């Protein structure tokens, strides 16, 4: 089928919308409520209006399907007028505090306002600071109901910035199935919010902050905590960086998605004033040692199966809140962040003779949920809070910009070797399927006692939401599955409940494509960008000399000097955890 857009013919499928045809062919149509990761828009923002030969009035291109003989004009006086007026109305409803805003310079509304030359209020702003003193009276009447929610450790919400585009509602409902958000009130008072406007109580995956076009939903800002720690001469700030951050930090500074910036990241953290920079990848290697051991133990004992990975705090929280009956199936291993943090405050502090009380553990994470994880009560194996400050990549970049540091001009630096040697297996944690592949590399070698001929388990890689494989290990057919996004995890859980699937080991990551699509990663993100990041991860693994966790010399040393062996009493105390039934 062919349609005409701006007097040129384009091929299309009968079930496509005008907007998707435009997008495919590089014709830009502005929109605020459509997002490539989400289900088709319901036409709420009215920005993508176009003229067609089928209807007298303007139609929203995101909802209108193509038809035979369709002719579309995407830019005309009429569409421009509609977009300008609607944008102006939205702008007047918006906080308009751009200079101080977290999303300044990376805000979809701001970008459109600039494009459509909306630089002054023709309407009295309903929110934000009064423009003129004599407008104060008018504003009082206009003040609409603003909801600010800072109650949870991960996500901060401020409806002053909200433009009611509904992306967060959709991502939470359709991708994560948590349905934390909905609409409250109606007409001009309508607000995205939680039921009865209670504080947000979800799995804190932060995907809502990934799709929010403005700063209405953002990561909770902890940069000030870090500034305080850095300014305190008594404190020793020890940073660690998550596997995926070295592939995404670069995006914040204009590099192409997937650009590998490990040494720049370390240099930046040192420049900020961190005393030591360690690598969470080492924590990942440690997780593999413990998790592989746990899997082998379960195979020996015969269950309980399937064993679920526990690296993703959102996934753990999801089980605790919605499927507590599966708590025994969760691996008891802590996440790499928590393993490394507790080791820093015990092993490393002992070795270097530091008082653990003066150590501030800072972790740079792709994830809003890690902020929550760090706050969990049981995460105090070292006798105090193991991880003190968690910053997402976005927060770190913001701080770096504020400090006027230019990472690309810094002299590259390496991780501090004490806890800074890593393997390709740990790097793989960055993407969905990575934990599984890393665990298999160690578990298979440990079970068979032979070296693997081929390290790449391509079978667990890929984009599909659920990827299953059977792996033959000395006659044992190990059934594994790799899952990302909670909607897919829910499917697997239901299948297991009904006895339809019998897996031994299942990896689950709450975010699309795993941590690489995490809720604290740079914006914007879509499938294409995430694929580029994954490519970076895989090629880094390929290029590393050490590619198996158990080959990591620091890991070997750790077990020799401190932890004895995987699953030892000490390891159990420092590296494993318990879960709580949080179902309501």
């Amino acid at each position, binding site marked *: 089928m062919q349609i005409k857009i701006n007097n040129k013919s384009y091929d299309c499928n009968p079930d496509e919308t005008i907007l998707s045809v435009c997008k495919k062919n590089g014709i830009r149509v502005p929109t605020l409520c459509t997002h490539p990761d989400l289900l088709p828009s319901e036409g709420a923002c*009215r920005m993508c209006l176009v003229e067609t030969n089928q209807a007298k009035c303007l139609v929203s291109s995101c909802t209108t399907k193509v038809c035979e003989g369709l002719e579309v004009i995407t830019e005309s006086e009429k569409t421009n007028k509609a977009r300008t007026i*609607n944008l102006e109305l939205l702008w007047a409803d918006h906080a308009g505090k751009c200079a101080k805003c977290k999303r300044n310079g990376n805000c979809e509304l701001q970008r459109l306002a600039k494009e459509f030359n909306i630089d002054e209020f*023709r309407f009295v702003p309903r929110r934000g600071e009064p423009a003129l003193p004599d407008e104060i009276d008018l504003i009082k009447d206009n003040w609409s109901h603003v909801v600010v929610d800072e109650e949870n450790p991960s996500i901060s919400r401020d409806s002053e910035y909200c*433009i009611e585009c509904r992306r967060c509602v959709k991502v939470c409902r359709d991708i994560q199935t948590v349905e934390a958000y909905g609409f409250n009130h109606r007409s001009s008072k309508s607000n995205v919010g939680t039921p009865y406007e209670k504080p947000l109580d979800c799995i804190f995956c932060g995907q809502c902050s990934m799709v929010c076009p403005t700063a209405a939903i953002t990561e909770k800002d902890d940069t000030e905590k870090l500034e305080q720690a850095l300014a305190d001469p008594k404190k020793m700030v020890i940073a660690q960086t998550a596997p995926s951050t070295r592939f995404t930090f670069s995006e914040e500074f204009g590099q192409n998605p997937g650009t590998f910036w490990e040494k720049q990241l370390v240099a930046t953290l040192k420049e900020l004033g961190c005393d030591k920079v360690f690598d969470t990848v080492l924590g990942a290697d440690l997780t593999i040692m413990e998790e592989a051991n746990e899997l082998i133990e379960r195979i020996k004992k015969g269950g309980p199966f399937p064993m679920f990975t526990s690296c993703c705090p959102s996934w753990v929280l999801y089980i605790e809140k919605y499927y507590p009956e599966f708590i025994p199936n969760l691996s008891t291993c802590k996440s790499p962040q928590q393993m490394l943090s507790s080791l820093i405050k015990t092993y490393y502090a002992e070795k270097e003779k530091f008082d653990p009380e003066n150590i501030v553990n800072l972790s740079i994470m792709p994830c809003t949920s890690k902020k929550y994880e760090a706050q969990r009560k049981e995460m105090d194996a070292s006798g105090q809070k193991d991880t003190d400050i968690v910053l997402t990549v976005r927060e770190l970049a913001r701080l770096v910009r504020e400090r006027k540091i230019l990472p690309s001009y810094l002299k590259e630096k390496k991780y501090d070797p004490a806890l800074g040697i890593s393997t390709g297996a740990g790097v793989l944690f960055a993407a969905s399927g990575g934990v599984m592949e890393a665990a298999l590399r160690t578990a298979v070698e440990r079970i068979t006692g032979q070296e693997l001929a081929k390290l790449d388990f391509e079978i667990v890689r890929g984009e599909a939401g659920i990827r299953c494989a059977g792996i033959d290990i000395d006659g044992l057919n190990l059934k594994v599955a790799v899952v990302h996004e909670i909607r897919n995890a829910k499917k697997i859980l239901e299948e297991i409940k009904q006895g339809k699937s019998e897996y031994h080991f299942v990896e689950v990551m709450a975010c699309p494509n795993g941590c690489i699509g995490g809720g604290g990663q740079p914006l914007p993100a879509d499938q294409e960008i995430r694929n580029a990041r994954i490519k970076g991860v895989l090629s880094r693994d390929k290029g590393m000399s050490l590619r198996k966790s158990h080959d990591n010399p620091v890991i070997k040393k750790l077990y020799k000097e401190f932890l004895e062996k995987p699953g030892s009493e000490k390891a159990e105390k420092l590296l494993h955890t318990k879960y709580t039934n949080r179902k309501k």
Partner: protein
Amino acid sequence: MILLKIISKRFMQILTKNWDKIDPFHIDTYARSGGYEALRKVIREMTPESVVKEIKISGLQGRGGAGCPTALKWESAAKTKAQDKYFICNLDESEPGVYKDRTIAEKSPHQIIEGMIIGAYAIGAKKGFIYINGHYEKSAEILTVAIKQALEKEFLGKGIMGSSFDFEIEIFRGSGAYICGEETALINTIEGKRGEPRLKPPYPVNSGLFGKPTVVNNTETLVNIPFIISRGAKIFSGIGMKNSPGTKLFLLEGAVKSKGIFEAPLGTSVQELIYNSIYGGGLEEGKEFWFAQIGGASGRLMTAGNLDQLLVYGPAEYPLGCGSILVVDKSMDLKDFLVSWSGFFHRESCGKCVPCREGTFRLHEIAKRIRNNDLLPDDQERLEDILWTLGNTTFCPLGNFAATAWKDAIRIFGDKIFKAA
């Protein structure tokens, strides 16, 4: 000839035939005046297809306001092969000052129920809802009693009148939002969702309540059905206008002498409705006609020069809407009207799309400034932009409705509005 016309009008009672003649709490009084005869005819003699055909011949149009041919909805829903289908009677009347559906429910509830059963039979629905405005407590009570009595008499329930046709009716009480009178928003609220319109297509007749084919008919539409079946489609289509057959309930309000609900054939002029002694009987003593608003808060304004316009469904310069005629005399202040209209739509916008959510808010803001005589220098220009975007870019017609009366007011009385009093 004139005399004949008046007589024929007087005899043309379809909708109000039973009013005050039957006891709404007793099904027998309705049955005695010919009630449930049409249903008997349908069950005994007619196939669902022939019922749809009969309605098609009658040319009955939806009385909710849009005037969509009723048979069109029924036919599409009847054609779908789904196992479950729903039939909904829309009694969520929320247009300011309109109470025709409520009066029907209170004076002749069984007529609604009979119409629904016949409709359900035609499309093959087993379950029906009466979606009633939450404020209509008395009507809901009357309808509950009526449904109970119809069940006892086996007009409802399993095996209606000895046939194999089952149908049950549930009363669903809405919460009184204006937008929930829109069929997809109405369906959303029955499903427990937020009351806001859905994207069309798919239309409810293909995928409506819980994704099943659903017909939503206005109450006034349904009370025509028993008449059409028992008296024949030909007789019905002979009443009123060729393209707009049947009678309609008109509500006369404002400065007319006799206010209330009047049944008149479609195609009656506004002039006649206001001045004819069998309807409005002219204006109240000492009042001078200024303009009339046709069809509720979303209706257009009609000045004296246009009073000869005939009120019909289909493309018309002055859409008939729900049939209310608000007569405004010269003692009224237009600015009060402006604030009242904008206030209503501002309150009732669902908040889904930007132009309606923000536009109605801004419209109301400017209306208040107009009333207080403190217009800002750019307000006229802003107002034009808002009305334009409401009229051209909103998701559902509510935005359009909000702008209609305002546009007319500015066109006709622009000087008065923008000149400080």
